[in-house]
Protein backbone atom coordinates (compact mmCIF):
# COMPACT_ATOMS: atom_id res chain seq x y z
CA UNK A 1 0.00 0.00 0.00
CA UNK A 2 1.32 3.41 -0.94
CA UNK A 3 0.98 5.84 1.93
CA UNK A 4 -0.05 9.45 1.45
CA UNK A 5 3.46 10.56 2.38
CA UNK A 6 4.93 8.36 -0.35
CA UNK A 7 2.41 9.69 -2.85
CA UNK A 8 3.37 13.24 -1.98
CA UNK A 9 7.07 12.40 -2.29
CA UNK A 10 6.37 10.75 -5.62
CA UNK A 11 4.51 13.78 -6.92
CA UNK A 12 7.17 16.15 -5.59
CA UNK A 13 9.91 14.16 -7.34
CA UNK A 14 8.15 14.31 -10.69
CA UNK A 15 7.32 17.98 -10.18
CA UNK A 16 11.00 18.72 -9.44
CA UNK A 17 12.11 16.89 -12.58
CA UNK A 18 9.49 18.63 -14.73
CA UNK A 19 10.21 22.06 -13.25
CA UNK A 20 13.97 21.66 -13.79
CA UNK A 21 13.38 20.76 -17.43
CA UNK A 22 10.98 23.66 -17.92
CA UNK A 23 13.47 26.06 -16.31
CA UNK A 24 16.24 24.69 -18.53
CA UNK A 25 14.16 25.20 -21.68
CA UNK A 26 13.32 28.73 -20.56
CA UNK A 27 16.99 29.49 -19.85
CA UNK A 28 18.09 28.05 -23.19
CA UNK A 29 15.59 30.12 -25.12
CA UNK A 30 16.48 33.35 -23.32
CA UNK A 31 20.22 32.83 -23.00
CA UNK A 32 21.08 36.06 -24.79
CA UNK A 33 19.07 38.13 -22.30
CA UNK A 34 20.66 36.29 -19.39
CA UNK A 35 24.04 36.86 -21.02
CA UNK A 36 23.37 40.59 -21.15
CA UNK A 37 22.51 40.43 -17.44
CA UNK A 38 25.84 38.75 -16.72
CA UNK A 39 27.68 41.42 -18.73
CA UNK A 40 25.84 44.13 -16.81
CA UNK A 41 27.41 42.93 -13.56
CA UNK A 42 30.58 44.70 -14.63
CA UNK A 43 32.60 41.56 -15.26
CA UNK A 44 35.39 42.13 -17.77
CA UNK A 45 38.02 40.08 -19.49
CA UNK A 46 41.15 39.82 -17.37
CA UNK A 47 43.63 42.58 -18.22
CA UNK A 48 46.28 39.85 -18.35
CA UNK A 49 44.77 39.15 -21.78
CA UNK A 50 43.15 42.43 -22.77
CA UNK A 51 46.02 44.67 -21.68
CA UNK A 52 43.94 46.69 -19.23
CA UNK A 53 41.77 49.74 -19.69
CA UNK A 54 42.96 52.60 -21.84
CA UNK A 55 44.60 55.29 -19.68
CA UNK A 56 45.74 57.89 -22.22
CA UNK A 57 45.63 58.50 -25.95
CA UNK A 58 48.25 60.62 -27.69
CA UNK A 59 47.30 61.78 -31.16
CA UNK A 60 50.11 62.02 -33.68
CA UNK A 61 50.00 62.90 -37.35
CA UNK A 62 47.73 60.26 -38.91
CA UNK A 63 47.99 57.78 -36.06
CA UNK A 64 47.52 57.51 -32.28
CA UNK A 65 49.38 56.03 -29.34
CA UNK A 66 47.18 54.20 -26.82
CA UNK A 67 48.70 53.77 -23.38
CA UNK A 68 46.92 51.36 -21.08
CA UNK A 69 46.89 51.49 -17.31
CA UNK A 70 49.60 49.49 -15.51
CA UNK A 71 48.40 45.93 -14.89
CA UNK A 72 49.45 44.63 -11.46
CA UNK A 73 46.22 42.66 -11.05
CA UNK A 74 46.13 39.62 -8.80
CA UNK A 75 43.26 37.82 -7.10
CA UNK A 76 43.28 39.73 -3.82
CA UNK A 77 46.19 42.15 -3.67
CA UNK A 78 48.26 43.68 -6.44
CA UNK A 79 51.42 42.00 -7.70
CA UNK A 80 54.80 43.70 -7.41
CA UNK A 81 55.57 43.23 -11.08
CA UNK A 82 53.18 43.85 -13.94
CA UNK A 83 53.16 45.40 -17.36
CA UNK A 84 51.94 48.36 -19.36
CA UNK A 85 50.56 47.83 -22.84
CA UNK A 86 51.14 50.44 -25.51
CA UNK A 87 49.41 50.31 -28.92
CA UNK A 88 50.11 52.27 -32.09
CA UNK A 89 47.42 52.42 -34.73
CA UNK A 90 46.07 52.29 -37.30
CA UNK A 91 49.02 50.16 -38.37
CA UNK A 92 48.57 51.18 -42.02
CA UNK A 93 49.31 54.82 -41.15
CA UNK A 94 52.43 54.27 -39.05
CA UNK A 95 55.82 55.59 -40.15
CA UNK A 96 58.59 53.04 -40.79
CA UNK A 97 60.28 53.93 -37.52
CA UNK A 98 58.65 54.86 -34.23
CA UNK A 99 60.34 56.61 -31.36
CA UNK A 100 58.10 57.34 -28.42
CA UNK A 101 58.80 59.03 -25.13
CA UNK A 102 56.53 57.35 -22.62
CA UNK A 103 55.18 57.96 -19.17
CA UNK A 104 54.25 54.39 -18.35
CA UNK A 105 53.24 54.76 -14.71
CA UNK A 106 51.16 57.88 -15.38
CA UNK A 107 52.95 60.04 -12.79
CA UNK A 108 53.30 62.93 -15.24
CA UNK A 109 57.02 62.28 -15.89
CA UNK A 110 58.23 60.44 -18.97
CA UNK A 111 60.71 57.74 -17.88
CA UNK A 112 61.35 55.71 -21.01
CA UNK A 113 61.93 55.92 -24.72
CA UNK A 114 60.76 53.09 -26.92
CA UNK A 115 62.02 52.67 -30.45
CA UNK A 116 60.85 50.17 -33.01
CA UNK A 117 60.83 49.49 -36.70
CA UNK A 118 57.19 48.98 -37.66
CA UNK A 119 58.13 46.34 -40.22
CA UNK A 120 60.47 44.38 -37.96
CA UNK A 121 60.17 42.35 -34.80
CA UNK A 122 62.79 44.19 -32.74
CA UNK A 123 62.15 46.81 -30.12
CA UNK A 124 64.58 48.97 -28.16
CA UNK A 125 63.74 50.36 -24.76
CA UNK A 126 65.88 53.10 -23.24
CA UNK A 127 65.27 54.04 -19.63
CA UNK A 128 67.08 55.12 -16.51
CA UNK A 129 64.25 53.85 -14.34
CA UNK A 130 65.01 50.50 -12.71
CA UNK A 131 61.29 49.75 -12.40
CA UNK A 132 60.87 49.63 -16.17
CA UNK A 133 61.69 46.89 -18.70
CA UNK A 134 62.26 44.77 -20.55
CA UNK A 135 59.82 45.20 -23.43
CA UNK A 136 58.26 42.17 -25.11
CA UNK A 137 58.47 41.66 -28.86
CA UNK A 138 55.99 43.86 -30.75
CA UNK A 139 52.86 42.14 -31.98
CA UNK A 140 50.74 43.09 -34.96
CA UNK A 141 47.16 42.87 -33.73
CA UNK A 142 44.64 42.46 -36.53
CA UNK A 143 41.25 44.18 -36.60
CA UNK A 144 38.52 42.60 -34.48
CA UNK A 145 36.83 39.86 -36.41
CA UNK A 146 33.87 39.32 -34.17
CA UNK A 147 30.80 41.45 -34.39
CA UNK A 148 30.21 42.25 -30.76
CA UNK A 149 26.49 42.21 -30.17
CA UNK A 150 26.72 43.72 -26.75
CA UNK A 151 29.93 45.57 -26.06
CA UNK A 152 31.64 44.70 -22.80
CA UNK A 153 32.02 47.63 -20.38
CA UNK A 154 35.61 48.16 -21.51
CA UNK A 155 36.64 47.45 -25.09
CA UNK A 156 39.53 45.00 -24.75
CA UNK A 157 42.74 46.57 -25.86
CA UNK A 158 41.51 49.91 -27.19
CA UNK A 159 39.64 50.45 -30.45
CA UNK A 160 38.68 47.00 -31.71
CA UNK A 161 38.23 47.96 -35.34
CA UNK A 162 41.85 49.02 -35.79
CA UNK A 163 44.91 47.06 -36.86
CA UNK A 164 47.71 48.05 -34.50
CA UNK A 165 51.15 47.33 -33.21
CA UNK A 166 51.25 46.40 -29.56
CA UNK A 167 54.12 46.24 -27.12
CA UNK A 168 54.00 45.16 -23.48
CA UNK A 169 56.60 46.66 -21.19
CA UNK A 170 57.35 45.24 -17.76
CA UNK A 171 56.76 47.69 -14.93
CA UNK A 172 57.51 47.10 -11.25
CA UNK A 173 56.00 48.82 -8.25
CA UNK A 174 59.45 49.62 -6.91
CA UNK A 175 63.10 48.97 -7.65
CA UNK A 176 63.12 46.54 -4.72
CA UNK A 177 61.03 44.20 -6.87
CA UNK A 178 63.87 43.89 -9.42
CA UNK A 179 65.05 40.28 -9.38
Amino acid at each position, binding site marked *: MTTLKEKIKQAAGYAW*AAAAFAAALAALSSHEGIGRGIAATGLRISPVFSGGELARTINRKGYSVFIHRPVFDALLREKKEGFVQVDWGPAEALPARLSETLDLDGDGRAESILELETAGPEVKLRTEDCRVGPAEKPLLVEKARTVRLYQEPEPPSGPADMKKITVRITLRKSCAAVK
Partner: protein
Amino acid sequence: MSHCPENKDAPLPVKSRGKSLLLSLPMLAITASMLAGRGAFATNGSTFAYFASLFFLNFMFYKMVRTGKTDKYRAIVFITLAGAAAFSFMSFFLELRGAFGVTPSEIMRGEVPACHMVLPMLFLPALFSKTIVFPGLITGGFASIAVLTVFWAAATLTIGKGYCSWFCFLGGFEDGFSRIFKSPVIKRIRPDLRLLPFAVLLTAVLTSAYTLTHTYCEWVCPYKMVTEFEQVVSLKLLVQSAIFIFTFSLLVVALPLLTRLRTQCAFFCPFGAMQTLAGKLAPFEIRIDTEKCSRCGKCLTECPDFSLDKDSLERGKPHISCHLCGKCVDLCPDKAIFFHIKGTSLKTDLEAQRIFFLYPAFTFLAGITGMNLQQALLRIINFFA
Protein backbone atom coordinates in the same frame (compact mmCIF):
# COMPACT_ATOMS: atom_id res chain seq x y z
CA MET B 1 33.95 -12.58 -15.76
CA SER B 2 30.20 -12.45 -15.69
CA HIS B 3 28.26 -15.68 -15.58
CA CYS B 4 25.07 -13.89 -16.54
CA PRO B 5 23.31 -14.43 -19.82
CA GLU B 6 23.97 -11.67 -22.38
CA ASN B 7 20.82 -9.68 -22.40
CA LYS B 8 21.60 -7.93 -25.68
CA ASP B 9 19.02 -10.29 -27.17
CA ALA B 10 16.39 -9.62 -24.53
CA PRO B 11 12.91 -9.49 -26.08
CA LEU B 12 12.40 -6.23 -27.93
CA PRO B 13 10.61 -3.93 -28.51
CA VAL B 14 9.15 -3.02 -25.17
CA LYS B 15 6.69 -0.45 -26.56
CA SER B 16 4.35 -0.41 -29.52
CA ARG B 17 5.20 1.72 -32.55
CA GLY B 18 2.23 4.04 -31.92
CA LYS B 19 3.04 4.65 -28.28
CA SER B 20 6.73 5.15 -29.07
CA LEU B 21 5.87 7.65 -31.79
CA LEU B 22 3.56 9.53 -29.50
CA LEU B 23 6.21 9.69 -26.78
CA SER B 24 8.80 10.84 -29.31
CA LEU B 25 6.75 13.64 -30.90
CA PRO B 26 7.47 16.31 -28.24
CA MET B 27 11.21 15.69 -28.74
CA LEU B 28 10.75 16.20 -32.47
CA ALA B 29 9.12 19.57 -31.75
CA ILE B 30 11.85 20.60 -29.29
CA THR B 31 14.77 19.65 -31.55
CA ALA B 32 13.05 21.04 -34.66
CA SER B 33 12.80 24.45 -33.04
CA MET B 34 16.26 24.35 -31.44
CA LEU B 35 18.05 23.36 -34.62
CA ALA B 36 16.17 25.94 -36.69
CA GLY B 37 18.67 28.62 -35.72
CA ARG B 38 20.38 31.25 -37.80
CA GLY B 39 20.63 30.33 -41.46
CA ALA B 40 19.09 26.84 -41.11
CA PHE B 41 17.04 27.36 -44.27
CA ALA B 42 19.26 29.89 -46.04
CA THR B 43 20.31 27.51 -48.83
CA ASN B 44 19.30 24.11 -50.18
CA GLY B 45 22.39 22.68 -48.53
CA SER B 46 21.57 24.08 -45.09
CA THR B 47 17.95 22.93 -45.42
CA PHE B 48 19.15 19.43 -46.25
CA ALA B 49 21.61 19.49 -43.32
CA TYR B 50 18.80 20.60 -41.02
CA PHE B 51 16.39 17.84 -42.03
CA ALA B 52 19.05 15.13 -42.18
CA SER B 53 20.26 16.00 -38.65
CA LEU B 54 16.71 16.22 -37.37
CA PHE B 55 15.83 12.83 -38.83
CA PHE B 56 18.95 11.07 -37.53
CA LEU B 57 18.66 12.49 -34.02
CA ASN B 58 14.94 11.85 -33.68
CA PHE B 59 15.20 8.36 -35.11
CA MET B 60 17.73 7.57 -32.39
CA PHE B 61 15.42 9.03 -29.75
CA TYR B 62 12.52 7.00 -31.10
CA LYS B 63 14.65 3.85 -30.90
CA MET B 64 15.55 4.67 -27.29
CA VAL B 65 11.90 5.02 -26.41
CA ARG B 66 10.73 1.97 -28.33
CA THR B 67 13.42 -0.51 -27.35
CA GLY B 68 13.95 0.60 -23.78
CA LYS B 69 17.69 0.79 -24.51
CA THR B 70 19.38 4.03 -23.58
CA ASP B 71 23.16 3.81 -23.94
CA LYS B 72 23.04 1.82 -27.17
CA TYR B 73 21.56 4.78 -29.07
CA ARG B 74 23.00 7.52 -26.89
CA ALA B 75 26.49 6.31 -27.72
CA ILE B 76 25.81 6.38 -31.47
CA VAL B 77 24.64 9.99 -31.25
CA PHE B 78 27.31 11.04 -28.74
CA ILE B 79 30.21 9.63 -30.75
CA THR B 80 28.82 10.96 -34.04
CA LEU B 81 28.45 14.42 -32.54
CA ALA B 82 31.99 14.36 -31.15
CA GLY B 83 33.36 13.69 -34.63
CA ALA B 84 31.01 16.25 -36.17
CA ALA B 85 32.00 18.89 -33.62
CA ALA B 86 35.73 18.40 -34.17
CA PHE B 87 35.25 18.47 -37.94
CA SER B 88 33.03 21.55 -37.97
CA PHE B 89 35.21 23.50 -35.46
CA MET B 90 38.45 22.76 -37.20
CA SER B 91 37.15 23.48 -40.68
CA PHE B 92 35.49 26.66 -39.38
CA PHE B 93 38.75 27.90 -37.86
CA LEU B 94 40.71 26.91 -40.93
CA GLU B 95 38.31 28.91 -43.08
CA LEU B 96 38.28 31.86 -40.66
CA ARG B 97 41.98 32.33 -40.11
CA GLY B 98 43.65 30.06 -42.65
CA ALA B 99 45.16 28.00 -39.81
CA PHE B 100 43.93 25.81 -36.96
CA GLY B 101 45.74 27.60 -34.18
CA VAL B 102 44.45 30.60 -32.23
CA THR B 103 46.55 33.64 -33.08
CA PRO B 104 48.12 35.99 -30.51
CA SER B 105 45.92 38.73 -32.03
CA GLU B 106 42.76 36.82 -31.20
CA ILE B 107 43.91 36.37 -27.62
CA MET B 108 44.62 40.07 -27.21
CA ARG B 109 41.31 41.03 -28.75
CA GLY B 110 39.47 38.53 -26.57
CA GLU B 111 37.98 36.61 -29.47
CA VAL B 112 38.73 33.02 -28.55
CA PRO B 113 35.57 30.86 -28.51
CA ALA B 114 35.05 29.62 -24.97
CA CYS B 115 34.69 25.99 -23.90
CA HIS B 116 32.92 24.65 -20.83
CA MET B 117 36.16 23.10 -19.53
CA VAL B 118 37.31 26.56 -18.49
CA LEU B 119 34.30 27.29 -16.27
CA PRO B 120 35.68 25.93 -12.96
CA MET B 121 38.67 28.22 -13.37
CA LEU B 122 36.53 31.31 -13.89
CA PHE B 123 34.49 31.40 -10.71
CA LEU B 124 37.06 32.54 -8.09
CA PRO B 125 38.60 35.34 -10.20
CA ALA B 126 35.11 36.48 -11.24
CA LEU B 127 34.05 36.63 -7.61
CA PHE B 128 37.13 38.32 -6.16
CA SER B 129 38.54 40.41 -8.99
CA LYS B 130 35.47 40.78 -11.23
CA THR B 131 37.48 39.50 -14.16
CA ILE B 132 37.10 36.58 -16.53
CA VAL B 133 40.40 34.77 -16.91
CA PHE B 134 39.76 33.69 -20.47
CA PRO B 135 40.39 35.74 -23.63
CA GLY B 136 36.88 35.23 -25.02
CA LEU B 137 33.75 37.28 -25.45
CA ILE B 138 31.61 37.79 -22.38
CA THR B 139 28.52 38.09 -24.56
CA GLY B 140 27.71 38.04 -28.26
CA GLY B 141 29.75 36.39 -30.99
CA PHE B 142 30.43 32.66 -31.16
CA ALA B 143 30.52 30.56 -27.94
CA SER B 144 30.56 33.44 -25.47
CA ILE B 145 31.26 32.90 -21.80
CA ALA B 146 27.78 34.08 -20.72
CA VAL B 147 26.02 31.65 -23.05
CA LEU B 148 28.21 28.76 -21.93
CA THR B 149 27.50 29.59 -18.30
CA VAL B 150 23.76 29.60 -18.94
CA PHE B 151 23.95 26.26 -20.79
CA TRP B 152 26.05 24.77 -18.01
CA ALA B 153 23.73 25.98 -15.23
CA ALA B 154 20.64 24.73 -17.08
CA ALA B 155 22.19 21.32 -17.75
CA THR B 156 23.55 20.98 -14.22
CA LEU B 157 20.20 21.65 -12.60
CA THR B 158 18.42 19.17 -14.84
CA ILE B 159 20.75 16.29 -15.67
CA GLY B 160 23.61 16.93 -13.23
CA LYS B 161 26.61 14.70 -13.91
CA GLY B 162 24.66 13.40 -16.90
CA TYR B 163 26.31 16.41 -18.57
CA CYS B 164 29.33 14.20 -19.21
CA SER B 165 27.49 11.57 -21.22
CA TRP B 166 24.84 13.70 -22.83
CA PHE B 167 26.18 17.18 -23.36
CA CYS B 168 29.98 17.25 -23.32
CA PHE B 169 30.71 16.19 -26.88
CA LEU B 170 34.40 15.94 -25.94
CA GLY B 171 33.61 12.81 -23.94
CA GLY B 172 32.42 11.24 -27.19
CA PHE B 173 36.00 10.61 -28.30
CA GLU B 174 36.80 8.50 -25.27
CA ASP B 175 33.42 6.86 -25.47
CA GLY B 176 34.25 5.80 -29.02
CA PHE B 177 37.79 4.56 -28.30
CA SER B 178 36.70 2.70 -25.17
CA ARG B 179 34.28 0.59 -27.22
CA ILE B 180 36.72 -0.62 -29.84
CA PHE B 181 38.11 -3.71 -28.03
CA LYS B 182 35.80 -6.34 -26.61
CA SER B 183 37.74 -6.83 -23.39
CA PRO B 184 40.22 -4.66 -21.51
CA VAL B 185 43.97 -5.22 -21.73
CA ILE B 186 44.54 -3.40 -18.44
CA LYS B 187 42.15 -4.83 -15.88
CA ARG B 188 43.45 -3.79 -12.48
CA ILE B 189 42.87 -0.16 -11.64
CA ARG B 190 43.46 1.43 -8.26
CA PRO B 191 40.14 2.61 -6.81
CA ASP B 192 41.73 5.70 -5.25
CA LEU B 193 42.33 7.03 -8.78
CA ARG B 194 38.70 8.14 -8.56
CA LEU B 195 39.93 11.01 -6.40
CA LEU B 196 42.40 12.28 -8.96
CA PRO B 197 39.94 14.55 -10.84
CA PHE B 198 39.24 16.38 -7.58
CA ALA B 199 42.96 16.98 -7.11
CA VAL B 200 43.23 18.23 -10.70
CA LEU B 201 40.19 20.47 -10.12
CA LEU B 202 41.66 21.95 -6.94
CA THR B 203 45.03 22.55 -8.59
CA ALA B 204 43.42 24.14 -11.65
CA VAL B 205 41.17 26.40 -9.57
CA LEU B 206 43.94 27.57 -7.24
CA THR B 207 46.61 28.09 -9.89
CA SER B 208 44.15 29.94 -12.12
CA ALA B 209 43.15 32.20 -9.24
CA TYR B 210 46.80 32.84 -8.40
CA THR B 211 47.95 33.59 -11.93
CA LEU B 212 44.65 35.03 -13.24
CA THR B 213 44.91 32.78 -16.26
CA HIS B 214 43.22 29.49 -17.22
CA THR B 215 46.07 27.20 -16.27
CA TYR B 216 44.46 23.82 -17.04
CA CYS B 217 43.46 24.92 -20.54
CA GLU B 218 46.82 26.49 -21.22
CA TRP B 219 48.96 23.66 -19.96
CA VAL B 220 47.17 20.32 -19.95
CA CYS B 221 43.76 20.05 -21.61
CA PRO B 222 43.92 17.12 -24.04
CA TYR B 223 40.94 18.35 -26.01
CA LYS B 224 42.83 21.23 -27.55
CA MET B 225 43.84 18.53 -30.00
CA VAL B 226 40.32 18.39 -31.45
CA THR B 227 39.09 21.93 -30.89
CA GLU B 228 41.64 24.70 -30.98
CA PHE B 229 45.08 25.47 -29.68
CA GLU B 230 47.42 28.41 -29.75
CA GLN B 231 49.76 28.87 -32.68
CA VAL B 232 53.28 27.88 -31.68
CA VAL B 233 55.13 31.19 -31.64
CA SER B 234 57.36 30.65 -28.60
CA LEU B 235 59.18 27.94 -26.67
CA LYS B 236 56.50 28.03 -23.96
CA LEU B 237 53.80 27.33 -26.56
CA LEU B 238 55.89 24.51 -28.02
CA VAL B 239 56.08 22.85 -24.59
CA GLN B 240 52.33 23.38 -24.05
CA SER B 241 51.58 21.81 -27.43
CA ALA B 242 53.76 18.78 -26.69
CA ILE B 243 51.86 18.32 -23.41
CA PHE B 244 48.39 18.44 -24.94
CA ILE B 245 49.37 16.04 -27.71
CA PHE B 246 50.70 13.68 -25.03
CA THR B 247 47.62 13.96 -22.76
CA PHE B 248 45.28 13.42 -25.72
CA SER B 249 47.20 10.40 -26.99
CA LEU B 250 47.39 8.85 -23.54
CA LEU B 251 44.10 9.74 -21.84
CA VAL B 252 41.72 9.98 -24.76
CA VAL B 253 43.09 7.33 -27.12
CA ALA B 254 45.52 4.80 -25.63
CA LEU B 255 44.11 4.25 -22.15
CA PRO B 256 40.44 4.10 -23.22
CA LEU B 257 41.47 1.47 -25.79
CA LEU B 258 43.38 -0.55 -23.20
CA THR B 259 41.01 -0.20 -20.25
CA ARG B 260 37.62 0.20 -21.99
CA LEU B 261 37.13 3.16 -19.64
CA ARG B 262 36.68 6.83 -20.38
CA THR B 263 39.96 7.46 -18.60
CA GLN B 264 40.21 11.20 -19.07
CA CYS B 265 36.69 11.67 -17.73
CA ALA B 266 37.02 9.15 -14.90
CA PHE B 267 40.51 10.00 -13.65
CA PHE B 268 41.48 13.47 -14.82
CA CYS B 269 38.87 15.95 -16.01
CA PRO B 270 38.47 18.90 -13.59
CA PHE B 271 35.17 19.89 -15.15
CA GLY B 272 33.87 16.37 -14.59
CA ALA B 273 34.92 16.64 -10.94
CA MET B 274 33.03 19.91 -10.62
CA GLN B 275 29.99 18.25 -12.22
CA THR B 276 30.20 15.39 -9.73
CA LEU B 277 29.73 17.92 -6.95
CA ALA B 278 27.29 20.27 -8.70
CA GLY B 279 25.30 17.33 -10.08
CA LYS B 280 23.96 16.66 -6.61
CA LEU B 281 21.47 19.46 -7.33
CA ALA B 282 19.82 17.52 -10.15
CA PRO B 283 16.73 15.36 -9.71
CA PHE B 284 18.03 12.25 -11.48
CA GLU B 285 20.29 9.42 -10.36
CA ILE B 286 21.03 5.76 -11.05
CA ARG B 287 19.82 3.31 -8.42
CA ILE B 288 20.21 -0.43 -7.92
CA ASP B 289 17.51 -2.64 -6.49
CA THR B 290 19.62 -4.71 -4.12
CA GLU B 291 16.94 -7.38 -3.86
CA LYS B 292 16.56 -7.86 -7.60
CA CYS B 293 20.29 -7.75 -8.29
CA SER B 294 21.74 -11.27 -8.68
CA ARG B 295 25.33 -9.96 -8.24
CA CYS B 296 26.33 -11.18 -11.71
CA GLY B 297 28.86 -8.36 -11.91
CA LYS B 298 28.19 -7.50 -15.54
CA CYS B 299 27.66 -3.83 -14.81
CA LEU B 300 30.89 -3.71 -12.80
CA THR B 301 32.95 -4.74 -15.80
CA GLU B 302 31.06 -2.62 -18.31
CA CYS B 303 30.72 0.76 -16.56
CA PRO B 304 32.91 3.09 -18.63
CA ASP B 305 33.32 5.50 -15.73
CA PHE B 306 34.64 3.13 -13.04
CA SER B 307 31.60 4.14 -11.00
CA LEU B 308 30.46 0.69 -9.95
CA ASP B 309 32.04 -1.81 -7.61
CA LYS B 310 30.84 -4.53 -5.27
CA ASP B 311 30.12 -1.90 -2.61
CA SER B 312 27.76 -0.11 -5.03
CA LEU B 313 25.70 -3.27 -5.38
CA GLU B 314 25.31 -3.42 -1.60
CA ARG B 315 24.66 0.32 -1.23
CA GLY B 316 22.15 0.35 -4.05
CA LYS B 317 23.81 3.18 -5.95
CA PRO B 318 26.93 3.84 -8.02
CA HIS B 319 29.70 6.20 -6.94
CA ILE B 320 28.90 9.87 -7.24
CA SER B 321 31.03 10.04 -10.38
CA CYS B 322 28.33 8.16 -12.36
CA HIS B 323 27.49 10.17 -15.46
CA LEU B 324 24.16 8.52 -16.18
CA CYS B 325 25.16 7.05 -19.51
CA GLY B 326 22.71 4.19 -19.03
CA LYS B 327 25.08 1.42 -20.14
CA CYS B 328 24.52 -0.57 -16.93
CA VAL B 329 20.77 -0.04 -17.26
CA ASP B 330 20.85 -1.50 -20.77
CA LEU B 331 22.97 -4.48 -19.80
CA CYS B 332 21.51 -5.58 -16.48
CA PRO B 333 19.86 -8.96 -17.06
CA ASP B 334 17.78 -8.59 -13.90
CA LYS B 335 16.58 -5.06 -14.70
CA ALA B 336 17.92 -4.19 -11.26
CA ILE B 337 19.61 -0.91 -12.30
CA PHE B 338 17.48 1.98 -13.39
CA PHE B 339 17.17 5.73 -13.84
CA HIS B 340 15.48 7.20 -10.82
CA ILE B 341 13.99 10.52 -9.81
CA LYS B 342 15.22 11.38 -6.32
CA GLY B 343 12.56 11.10 -3.65
CA THR B 344 10.28 8.77 -5.58
CA SER B 345 9.65 5.12 -4.81
CA LEU B 346 12.23 2.63 -6.05
CA LYS B 347 9.59 0.13 -7.01
CA THR B 348 7.27 1.88 -9.42
CA ASP B 349 7.18 3.53 -12.83
CA LEU B 350 10.79 2.76 -13.72
CA GLU B 351 10.20 3.22 -17.46
CA ALA B 352 8.36 6.49 -16.84
CA GLN B 353 11.33 7.72 -14.83
CA ARG B 354 13.69 6.79 -17.67
CA ILE B 355 11.55 8.73 -20.17
CA PHE B 356 11.48 11.67 -17.74
CA PHE B 357 15.29 11.62 -17.72
CA LEU B 358 15.61 11.12 -21.47
CA TYR B 359 13.73 14.32 -22.28
CA PRO B 360 16.12 16.84 -20.72
CA ALA B 361 19.17 14.69 -21.45
CA PHE B 362 18.38 14.29 -25.13
CA THR B 363 17.41 17.96 -25.41
CA PHE B 364 20.96 18.91 -24.45
CA LEU B 365 22.49 16.19 -26.57
CA ALA B 366 20.49 16.76 -29.73
CA GLY B 367 19.09 20.26 -29.38
CA ILE B 368 22.39 21.95 -28.63
CA THR B 369 25.31 19.76 -29.66
CA GLY B 370 23.20 18.51 -32.57
CA MET B 371 24.00 21.83 -34.24
CA ASN B 372 27.52 20.51 -34.78
CA LEU B 373 26.12 17.76 -36.96
CA GLN B 374 24.20 20.32 -39.01
CA GLN B 375 27.36 22.39 -39.41
CA ALA B 376 29.48 19.40 -40.35
CA LEU B 377 26.98 18.21 -42.95
CA LEU B 378 26.70 21.69 -44.39
CA ARG B 379 30.47 21.97 -44.70
CA ILE B 380 30.65 18.62 -46.50
CA ILE B 381 27.82 19.64 -48.85
CA ASN B 382 29.44 23.01 -49.55
CA PHE B 383 32.77 21.31 -50.20
CA PHE B 384 31.32 19.06 -52.89
CA ALA B 385 28.86 21.60 -54.30
